[in-house]
């Protein structure tokens, strides 16, 4: 169990470093989406500005691009749904293990 704990802690630290290091080392970077970099590349490779032939349903509906704040809200909703489900299930698992362990020791 304690061996597990050290592994978990080390992995968490590495994970955090991977996220934090670029932010600190690359001051002034834009941190735009790489999906957008893809569209720039399309223009470069094909040698002409590509006109998307279909606009996202939402943009048609809103009559323009979604405001940045709203977009981050939607991303949060997605994260929230996911985390909610995971936390609910994980909570049940943890609690169940407690009960099972108790029964086994009795």
């Amino acid at each position, binding site marked *: 169990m304690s061996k*597990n704990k050290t*592994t978990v802690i080390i*992995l*968490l630290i*590495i*994970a955090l470093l*991977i*996220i934090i*290091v*670029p*932010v600190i080392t*690359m001051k002034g*970077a*834009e*941190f*735009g*989406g*790489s*999906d*957008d*970099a*893809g*569209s720039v*590349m*399309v223009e*470069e*490779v*094909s*040698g002409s500005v*590509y006109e*998307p*032939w*279909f*606009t*996202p*349903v*939402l*943009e048609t509906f809103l009559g323009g*691009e*979604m405001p940045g704040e709203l*977009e981050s809200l*939607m*991303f*949060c*909703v*997605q*994260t929230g*749904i*996911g*985390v*909610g*489900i*995971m936390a609910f*299930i*994980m909570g*049940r*698992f*943890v609690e*169940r*293990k407690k009960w099972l362990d108790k029964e086994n020791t009795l």
Partner: protein
Amino acid sequence: MSKKQKKVVLFSIWVAAMFAVTPAVNAMHIMEGYLPVKYCIAWGVISLPFLVVGFFSIKNKLKENRKQITLLAMAGAFIFVISSLKIPSVTGSCSHMTGTGLGAILFGPCAVSILGIIVLIFQAILLAHGGLTTLGANTFSMAIAGPLLSFVLYKLGNKLKINKRVTVFFAAFLGDLFTYCVTSIQLALAYPSAEGGVAVSAIKFLGVFAPTQLPLAVLEGIITVLIVIALETYAKPELIKVGFMKEAN
């Protein structure tokens, strides 16, 4: 699988094969409207058999044992969370992970294709991220090709008796990376370079995605290992049922 299910699967494979013959076929989230129509359709059709098999495999697994739904929901929610987090990378741009490795390891690549497409539809409609027209192509790269590689690597690691956590790490890590490789190839097929054709173009697209994605792929590997450790500790009965763990340990 029942007889009727097999028939539907065969039919979908047959339809896909018909389309695969079309010579120029044309993938992480390709933007809405950025793929020519024929590529959109072609990728959608190629993804179809996987989705059909996945649907039945989930249905059969749940019929067999209703309780597996907890792990399945876990794998699905994992994709939801992971693919919504845009993480800064060394190249100065942000990208997000796929999160499909966990599901592929636990349930096989086809089942994940269903979980993946749910996320992709969510993002395409509500976030204008990816797109409905490019859904087929994105499904193929993120929910089929990546998980398929993860699954194969996981099985291979098991056979070679490599440490389970190391195996899980590499399965998730390379699965994520492979998703972006496939995306590059998909874009390259649709936009071959003026000189050098598809291959040169593929390398160029890969040049955009790979450096950004590499650290994130490592991150995905680590997170997947963490969640597997958590599940190993708390959800042993479920993991034994899906064949991830053996009864003895």
